[in-house]
C-alpha cells in the first residue's frame, strides 16, 4: 500500500506542469549563476580577477546551499501540497476511509514530497554543472569537474536540511491544513536561522554556534573559516565530528517532528486551528418564526463618482489591512524581523567591543535587512494573498457583481499594502526609539525618523507593492507569482555581473540616500527622488495592466481574459497608461542622455579598457625625467551653498635630475582646468578622456633650475540631479588629489592578472620589490614630490571654519566670506587636505603643543578622550621615538558620508563622525576598548610613522606606517588601560588576519613584502610587532625603532624599505630569538598549539602541582596558502597519534612559547599564577609547574601572541587529580 500511495503521488507530480516549471527555473537560475561566476560574461563586462576557483568543493557546496534556500520556499507547495490537496479537494473524507495504515499514508505522502523536492534540487545541481562547462567560461576560474563535490554536498547538507525543513512544513500543513501557514513557517525559520547567525557572531564558543545552526553552515564554517585560498581551491568538503553531530541533531529533530505528526495525526476531519481571540462558545439558536412581512427598503443613493470610489477604496482597504495585521504570518514575521534588527543593531554598532551611541541614523541604518528583505517579502506575500483572497474565501462573486469598478477594488488592495508597509516602518521607528530609551539616550529626532521612513523608504517599498500586485494579478497560481517576485528582486542586484550596469535598466534601482549628522542628506535626495519618480511611473503603468487584467467573474479561457482586458482598457486608463509610459520613457531617455551623452559614462568594461590604454599610451613615460614639486601655494574658494569651488595654485617645480627637461607631463582630472608655466610653452599632447597633457617648454629646464607652474581649477556647475563637485553644504573634506600631478602615475595601471592578460599587458606585481632601486626614488605617497613647503588661503562661507595643514596666520572676513591663511613652517609630504564646516572647537595643550578638536555641535561625547589620546600619545612617542615635528595637533570631524575612517595629514587629523565621535565608551566593560582613544593614538602615531619615516614605493612600505602606528597605539593603550585590553584587541586582530587571508584575491605576502594588504599590515602587523616587543623587551625594541627614525626621518631618496627597517630589529634581537624575525616578518608562519590534558594535584605542603600536556606544531604556507612542514634543509617533525588518520607534522622546533597557569582573585577575576616562556623542541610536550594558589586553568601560548588558527584550544580548565594508588591508573 505504501508503494502505491508513494508512486501515485510521484505520478501526480510528474503530470503537473508546476513540477517542470520549478525544475526549469532552478536549472536556469543555477546555470546562470554558475556561468556568471565562471566568467561567461567577462566579454561584456569587466574581468574577474580572482585566484579562487568557483567550482571547488567548498564553493559548490555554498552555491548548492543557496539554491537549497530558494527550494525551501517550494516546500510548502510540494511537501505541503501533497497532503494539502487531499483536504483542499475535500478528498480526505473519502480517502481517509480507505483501508491503509496511518504510517503508510503519512510516510508515503512525506517521502513522495521529499523525493520531488530532491529532484528539483537535482536540477539545480545539474544547472551548476552545466553552467561550469558552458563554452565561454574562463578556465582559470574553474578546477576539474569532481562529481564527489556534489554528492557530498547532497549527503551532508542538502538532503538532511530538506528532511528537517520538510518535516516542519509537513507538520504545519498537516495540522493547519493551510499551505500559506507552511509558507510563513519557512520564512520564519529562515529568519530564525539568520537571527541565530547574528547572535552567535559574538559567541566565543564556536562549537555551540556551530551546533545551533540548522543549516549546518556554521558547522562547516567551524572547519573552513580560516582556510587559505589554496585550501579553498583544493580541499574536499570537510566532515568533522562537529558537522556530524550537527547533522545528526537537526535531522534527528526533523525525524522527531515527523514522528510527532505520526503520533498526533488521526484521520478525522477537523483541522487544528488556533486563534488570537478566544471565541465564545455560545450556540446560536435561529429564529424560525415570524413569516410574512412587508418589505420596505429605505431609499439609498448610489454614488459611483470617482472621488467616492476613491474614498471607498481607502475605507474598504481597512478590511484587508486588518486581515493582514491580524494574521499569524504577519505577526510572527514582523516580530522576528524586529528581533533580528535589534540583534543587528546590538552587534553591528560595536567596534572593538564598545558600543556606539544610539544616534538616530544608526537606528535607521542597521535595520537595513528589515527594510530590504522583510518588507519586500511581506509585500510579495500579502500582495498575492490579497489578490487571491476573495477567491480563496469564495466571496468573489458577491464582490465582483457589485458596481464598484475594478480599479477601485484593486486600489483598496494597494492601500492595504501601503498601510501594512507603514505599520512595519513605524515598527522600525518604535524599535529605534525603544533602544534609545533603553540606553538612556533621549535626543529623539522624530522628524528624522519620519522623513527617512516615510519620505524616503516608503516610496521604494510602495513601488515594489505596485509591481507585486501586477505580477500576482497575472498568475492564478500564488506560488509562481511569489517565486517570480523573489527571483526578480534578488536577481536584479546581480544584473551588473551580466553587463547591465545602469540603474535605469534595473527595476526600482537607483542611487541611494546617505545621511550624516553634519551634512544631512547632502545632495543625495534629488537623484534618489528622480529615479523613484521614474520607477513609480512604470509602476503605475504596470498597475494599469493589473487593473485591466483583474480577474473579475469567471473567465473561461485566455482569449476571454484578453477580450475582457481590451474592453476594460477604457479611454481613461489608456490615457493614464500612455502618460505614465511616455513619462517613464522620457525620463529614462533624459537620464540616459545626461549620464551617457552629456557626460561621459564608462561601463566597467570600457573603464577596464581605458585603464589598459592608460598604460599602453603613457606607460612609456614612467621613468622619464620630470621636475618635482617643492613648494605648494593654493588659494581655494569653497562655496558651500552652491557646492562649488575655485582653486588657484602655484607649484614650484625643481629639476632634481641630471638632465635638462624640455617637456612636462601633467596628469589632471576632468574639472575645468587651466595651466601656465610662466615663460613660453606649447601644448603638444592633450588627452581629454584620460586627462593627460604634455607641454613643451621653449626653454628646457636645466638641472637644479626651478619653474613656477600655476593652475586654476573649478567645477562644472552642479545640476539638480548631477553633482559635479566634491563640495558639501557642511563638512567638505577634499585633498590634493584634486590638483594636477606631474608625470605618469603607475598606480593607475590595471592590477588584476586576468584583466592584464585580457588586454595583452605583461604580468605585474602589485608593488615593486624593495630591492628595486627605481622604486626607491619615490615614497609610496607621491611620485612627483619629496618634501614640500606648503601655504594656503581658504575662503568659505562666514559661519564655517576651513582647515588645512599648517598654522593659522590670519583669519578675516571680507565681502561676506571668511578667509583662513595657513602656513606650514617645516617640510611635509605632498599630501594635504581641506576641510570646511560649522564647528565647535575644544582646545587644550601638551607642554607647548596646542591640541584642538573641531567637532560638530552635539558631538562632544568623546572629545575629551581624543584629547587624552593625543596627550598620552605625545608622551609615549616623544619619549620612545623622537620629538614631534609640529607645534600643534588638530582633530577635525568630517561627515560619515565621506567615509568611516580617520586619516593623518601633517598636524591635521580628519576623523569621521561615524567612528569615535559617537562611541559610547564604558570603562566598566572589560570586553570593550576605548577606541576613540586608540584610534587617536594610531593617527597621532602616523605623525612619526608616515610623516617622519616614509617608506619607498615598494612592497613592505606600510610596515613602517600602518603596522608601526598600530604597534604604537597598542603601547599607548596598554599604558593607559593595562594588558587586559590588549587581549581583546589582539584577538580581534588575529581573527581579522585569518579571515582576511582566506579571501585574498592574489597572493598573501609576508609582512615585509606586503602590498598594501590591510589584513597584513594592520592585523598581522600589530600582532607580530606586539609579540616581538614581548619577546625582546619593549625598551630594546623602542631603542631600535628610535635609532631607525634617527637614520631615516625626513630623508631624501632613495627612501627606506622594510628590509632596512628589519635590519634594525634584527640588531636588537638576540640570536636565540632570531627565528622570530624569519617566522613573523619574512615568511608566513602559523602555529597549531593545543592543550591535550591539564590536571593538578594538591601537594602535602599545600602547593599545587599542575601538569600540562600539550602539542605544538608550526608550519609555513606559501603565497597561495599551501602548507609546508619542512624547512630549507628538508627537515621536519612528525608524530603519530592513535586515533588520528594523519600524523601531526611540524617544522623543526626550537621555539620559546608562553606557558601559563591561572587562578582567580577574590572578585572571581582571572589572575596569573605563572607565565613564562619555555623552550619547546618537540611536538608533544608535558610540563609540570608548581604554584602556590589554587589554579583553575592552564595553557600553551594562552594569550594568543602567536598566530594560530584555533586559538580556543590553547587553554583549558584544570581537572583536579585526587591522590590515588598507582594501581588504579
Amino acid at each position: 500500500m505504501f508503494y502505491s500511495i508513494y508512486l501515485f503521488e510521484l505520478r501526480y507530480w510528474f503530470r503537473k506542469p508546476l513540477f517542470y516549471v520549478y525544475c526549469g527555473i532552478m536549472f536556469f537560475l543555477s546555470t546562470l549563476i554558475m556561468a556568471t561566476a565562471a566568467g561567461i560574461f567577462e566579454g561584456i563586462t569587466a574581468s574577474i580577477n580572482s585566484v579562487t576557483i568557483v567550482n571547488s568543493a567548498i564553493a559548490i557546496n555554498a552555491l548548492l546551499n543557496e539554491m537549497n534556500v530558494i527550494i525551501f520556499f517550494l516546500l510548502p507547495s510540494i511537501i505541503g501540497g501533497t497532503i494539502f490537496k487531499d483536504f483542499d479537494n475535500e478528498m480526505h473524507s473519502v480517502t481517509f476511509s480507505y483501508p491503509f495504515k496511518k504510517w503508510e499514508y503519512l510516510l508515503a505522502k512525506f517521502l513522495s514530497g521529499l523525493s520531488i523536492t530532491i529532484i528539483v534540487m537535482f536540477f539545480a545541481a545539474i544547472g551548476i554543472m552545466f553552467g561550469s562547462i558552458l563554452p565561454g567560461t574562463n578556465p582559470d576560474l574553474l578546477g576539474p569537474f569532481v562529481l564527489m563535490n556534489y554528492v557530498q554536498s547532497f549527503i551532508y547538507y542538502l538532503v538532511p536540511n530538506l528532511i528537517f525543513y520538510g518535516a516542519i512544513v509537513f507538520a504545519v500543513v498537516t495540522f493547519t491544513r493551510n499551505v500559506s501557514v507552511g509558507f510563513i513557517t519557512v520564512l520564519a525559520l529562515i529568519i530564525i536561522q539568520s537571527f541565530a547567525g547574528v547572535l552567535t557572531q559574538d559567541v566565543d564558543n564556536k562549537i555551540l554556534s556551530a551546533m545551533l545552526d540548522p543549516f549546518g553552515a556554521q558547522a562547516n564554517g567551524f572547519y573552513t573559516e580560516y582556510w587559505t585560498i589554496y585550501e579553498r581551491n583544493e580541499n574536499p568538503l570537510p566532515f568533522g565530528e562537529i558537522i556530524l553531530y550537527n547533522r545528526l541533531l537537526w535531522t534527528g529533530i526533523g525525524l522527531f517532528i515527523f514522528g510527532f505528526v505520526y503520533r498526533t495525526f488521526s484521520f478525522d476531519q477537523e483541522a487544528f486551528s488556533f486563534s488570537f481571540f478566544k471565541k465564545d462558545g455560545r450556540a446560536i439558536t435561529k429564529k424560525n418564526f415570524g413569516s410574512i412581512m412587508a418589505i420596505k427598503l429605505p431609499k439609498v443613493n448610489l454614488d459611483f463618482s470617482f472621488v467616492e470610489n476613491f474614498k471607498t477604496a481607502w475605507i474598504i482597504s481597512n478590511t484587508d489591512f486588518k486581515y493582514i495585521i491580524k494574521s499569524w504570518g504577519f505577526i510572527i514575521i514582523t516580530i522576528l524581523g524586529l528581533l533580528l534588527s535589534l540583534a543587528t543593531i546590538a552587534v553591528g554598532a560595536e567596534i572593538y567591543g564598545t558600543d556606539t551611541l544610539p544616534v538616530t541614523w544608526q537606528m535607521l541604518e542597521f535595520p537595513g535587512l528589515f527594510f530590504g528583505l522583510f518588507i519586500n517579502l511581506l509585500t510579495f506575500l500579502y500582495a498575492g494573498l490579497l489578490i487571491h483572497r476573495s477567491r480563496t474565501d469564495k466571496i468573489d462573486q458577491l464582490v465582483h457583481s457589485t458596481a464598484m469598478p475594478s480599479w477601485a477594488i484593486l486600489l483598496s488592495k494597494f492601500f492595504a499594502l501601503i498601510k501594512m508597509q507603514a505599520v512595519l516602518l513605524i515598527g522600525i521607528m518604535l524599535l529605534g526609539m525603544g533602544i534609545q530609551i533603553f540606553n538612556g539616550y533621549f535626543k529623539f529626532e522624530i522628524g528624522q525618523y519620519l522623513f527617512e521612513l516615510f519620505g524616503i523608504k516608503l516610496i521604494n517599498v510602495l513601488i515594489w507593492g505596485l509591481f507585486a500586485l501586477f505580477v500576482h494579478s497575472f498568475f492564478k497560481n500564488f506560488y509562481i507569482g511569489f517565486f517570480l517576485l523573489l527571483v526578480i528582486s534578488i536577481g536584479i542586484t546581480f544584473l551588473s555581473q551580466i553587463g547591465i550596469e545602469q540603474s535605469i535598466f534595473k527595476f526600482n534601482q537607483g542611487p541611494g540616500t546617505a545621511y550624516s549628522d553634519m551634512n544631512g542628506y547632502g545632495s543625495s535626495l534629488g537623484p534618489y527622488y528622480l529615479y523613484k519618480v521614474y520607477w513609480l511611473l512604470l509602476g503605475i503603468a504596470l498597475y494599469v495592466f493589473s487593473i485591466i487584467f483583474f480577474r473579475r467573474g469567471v473567465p473561461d479561457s485566455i482569449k476571454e481574459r484578453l477580450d475582457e482586458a481590451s474592453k476594460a482598457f477604457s479611454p481613461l486608463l489608456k490615457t493614464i497608461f500612455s502618460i505614465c509610459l511616455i513619462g517613464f520613457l522620457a525620463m529614462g531617455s533624459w537620464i540616459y542622455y545626461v549620464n551617457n551623452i552629456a557626460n561621459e559614462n564608462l561601463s566597467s568594461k570600457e573603464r577596464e579598457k581605458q585603464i589598459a590604454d592608460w598604460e599602453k599610451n603613457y606607460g612609456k613615460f614612467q621613468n622619464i625625467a620630470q621636475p618635482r614639486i617643492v613648494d605648494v601655494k593654493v588659494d581655494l574658494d569653497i562655496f558651500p551653498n552652491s557646492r562649488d569651488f575655485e582653486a588657484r595654485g602655484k607649484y614650484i617645480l625643481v629639476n632634481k635630475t641630471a638632465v635638462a627637461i624640455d617637456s612636462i607631463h601633467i596628469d589632471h582630472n576632468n574639472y575645468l582646468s587651466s595651466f601656465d608655466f610662466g615663460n613660453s610653452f606649447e601644448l603638444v599632447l592633450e588627452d581629454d578622456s584620460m586627462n593627460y597633457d604634455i607641454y613643451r617648454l621653449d626653454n628646457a629646464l636645466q638641472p637644479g633650475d626651478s619653474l613656477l607652474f600655476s593652475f586654476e581649477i573649478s567645477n562644472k556647475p552642479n545640476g539638480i540631479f548631477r553633482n559635479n563637485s566634491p563640495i558639501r553644504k557642511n563638512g567638505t573634506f577634499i585633498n590634493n588629489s584634486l590638483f594636477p600631478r606631474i608625470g605618469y602615475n603607475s598606480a593607475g595601471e590595471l592590477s588584476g592578472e586576468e584583466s592584464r592578460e585580457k588586454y595583452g599587458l605583461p604580468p605585474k606585481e602589485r608593488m615593486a620589490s624593495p630591492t628595486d632601486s627605481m622604486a626607491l626614488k619615490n615614497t609610496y605617497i607621491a611620485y612627483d614630490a619629496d618634501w614640500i613647503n606648503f601655504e594656503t588661503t581658504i575662503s568659505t562661507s562666514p559661519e564655517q571654519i576651513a582647515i588645512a595643514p599648517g598654522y593659522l596666520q590670519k583669519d578675516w572676513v571680507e565681502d561676506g566670506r571668511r578667509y583662513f591663511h595657513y602656513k606650514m613652517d617645516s617640510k611635509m609630504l605632498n599630501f594635504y587636505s581641506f576641510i570646511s564646516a560649522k564647528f565647535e572647537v575644544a582646545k587644550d595643550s601638551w607642554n607647548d603643543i596646542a591640541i584642538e578638536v573641531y567637532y560638530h555641535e552635539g558631538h562632544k561625547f568623546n572629545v575629551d578622550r581624543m584629547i587624552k589620546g593625543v596627550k598620552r600619545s605625545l608622551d609615549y612617542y616623544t619619549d620612545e621615538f623622537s620629538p614631534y615635528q609640529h607645534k600643534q595637533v588638530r582633530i577635525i570631524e568630517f561627515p560619515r558620508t565621506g567615509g568611516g575612517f580617520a586619516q593623518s595629514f601633517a598636524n591635521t587629523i580628519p576623523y569621521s563622525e561615524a567612528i569615535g565621535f559617537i562611541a559610547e565608551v564604558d570603562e566598566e566593560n572589560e570586553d570593550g576598548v576605548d577606541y576613540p582613544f586608540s584610534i587617536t593614538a594610531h593617527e597621532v602615531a602616523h605623525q612619526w610613522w608616515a610623516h617622519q619615516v616614509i617608506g619607498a614605493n615598494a612592497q613592505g612600505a606600510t610596515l613602517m606606517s600602518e603596522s608601526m602606528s598600530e604597534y604604537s597605539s597598542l603601547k599607548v593603550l596598554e599604558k593607559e588601560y593595562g594588558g587586559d585590553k590588549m587581549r581583546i584587541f589582539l584577538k580581534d586582530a588575529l581573527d581579522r588576519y585569518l579571515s582576511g587571508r582566506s579571501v585574498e584575491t592574489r597572493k598573501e605576502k609576508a609582512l615585509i613584502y606586503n602590498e598594501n594588504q590591510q589584513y597584513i599590515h594592520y592585523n598581522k602587523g600589530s600582532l607580530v610587532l606586539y609579540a616581538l616587543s614581548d619577546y625582546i623587551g619593549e625598551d630594546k625594541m623602542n631603542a631600535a625603532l628610535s635609532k631607525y627614525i634617527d637614520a631615516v626621518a625626513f630623508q631624501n631618496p632613495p627612501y627606506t624599505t622594510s628590509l632596512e627597517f628589519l635590519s634594525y630589529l634584527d640588531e636588537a634581537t638576540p640570536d636565540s630569538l632570531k627565528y622570530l624575525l624569519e617566522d613573523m616578518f619574512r615568511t608566513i608562519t602559523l602555529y597549531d598549539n593545543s592543550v591535550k590534558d591539564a590536571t593538578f594535584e594538591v601537594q602535602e605542603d599545600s602547593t599545587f602541582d599542575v601538569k600540562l600536556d600539550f602539542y605544538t606544531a608550526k608550519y609555513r604556507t606559501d603565497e597561495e596558502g599551501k602548507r609546508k612542514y619542512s624547512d630549507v634543509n628538508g627537515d621536519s617533525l612528525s608524530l603519530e597519534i592513535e586515533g588520528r588518520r594523519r600524523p601531526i607534522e611540524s617544522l623543526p622546533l626550537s621555539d620559546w612559547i608562553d606557558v601559563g597557569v591561572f587562578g582567580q582573585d577574590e572578585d572571581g577575576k582571572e589572575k596569573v599564577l605563572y607565565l613564562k616562556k619555555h623552550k619547546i623542541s618537540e611536538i608533544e610536550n608535558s610540563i609540570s609547574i608548581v604554584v602556590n594558589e589554587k589554579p583553575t586553568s592552564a595553557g600553551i601560548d594562552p594569550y594568543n601572541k602567536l598566530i594560530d588558527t584555533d586559538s580556543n584550544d590553547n587553554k583549558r580548565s584544570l581537572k583536579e587529580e585526587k591522590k590515588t594508588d598507582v594501581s588504579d591508573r
Partner: protein
Amino acid sequence: MELSLSNISKTYKNGVKALDNVTVDITSGMFGLLGPNGAGKSTLMRTIATLQAPDSGTAVFNDINILEDKISLRKTLGYLPQSFGVYPKMSAEDLLLYFARLKGITEKKEREQIVQTALEITNLWEVRKKSVKGYSGGMKQRFGIAQLLLNSPKLIIVDEPTAGLDPAERNRFLNVLREIGTNNIVIFSTHIVDDVKELCTDMAIMNGGKILGHHTPAEGIERLNNQIWTKNIQREELEENEAKFNVISSNFNQDNSLNIRVHSETQPDESFSLGTPELEDVYFVTLHKDSEIVAA
C-alpha cells in the same frame, strides 16, 4: 421593466455546450428557472449577473446592454450565487457595511439604515455581531439575501437558494423573495418544483443549455388537463409499463407498490385513471419530450 435575452450561447473550453441559443423575455415578478443539475442554469445566471461572457447573443435589461455596460447593470443588480463564502472573523453587520460601501452607498447614515433594515428583514438583527463564518446554512443564505438587498436592486438573481434549507427556513426565505418580487424582476433557479409552484409568476424549464418551455405555472398545468393518467402497479411491472406507456414519473406507495404517472392525450388503457396535473408533471413532460427529440 423587462429583461430580454436573445440567442445566448456559451461553449466551455472543455467542449460542454452550457447555453444553446437561449432566448427569453422576463418581466416583473418571480421568474422560476427550473431544470435538473447541469442544465446550464448557473451559467445563464452568471451571464445575466455579468460574471461570465457568452460566446454570442444579446442581453438587455430595460435600457441596459448587459454584456457591454456591466457596471450599469451591477448598480441595479442583486446577485446571490449558488454557493459563496465570507471573510472569516467578520460579523454580519461589518460585512454588510462593507458591501454597502462596495455598492456605492456613500452616506454613512444611509448605509447604517439599509444594513439595519436588511438585517431585520432577514431576521439576522439579533446575531448581527456574530461572525458570518459561524452561521448555519439557512442563516448564511439569509445573509446572502441581506447583502443583495443593499442597493435596492431592480434585477435580482438567486441561484438555487433553497438547496439544503429546512422547511421553515425555506418558507421564510421564499416569502422574502416573493415580497421583493412584487415590484422587481426576481430570477430564481431551482431544481425543486415546489419552489416554483408556490411563488413564481412566470417560469421556464431548462435542460441541456436550452429553454424547453416558458409559461406561467398555471398555463403549464392547464395545458396538461386530461392528459395525465395514473395507476398503481407492483414494482416488477414497472419496466413493462415503461416500455408500453409514456411514463413520466413513478413513486413508491407505503405498501411498496408503485404509483406511476403517464402522459397521454387519450386514456392509455382502462387500468389508468385520470389524474390532476401538477407542476411536477409539467416539468417531467417537458424534460421527457426533450429527451425523446434527442433520442430521435
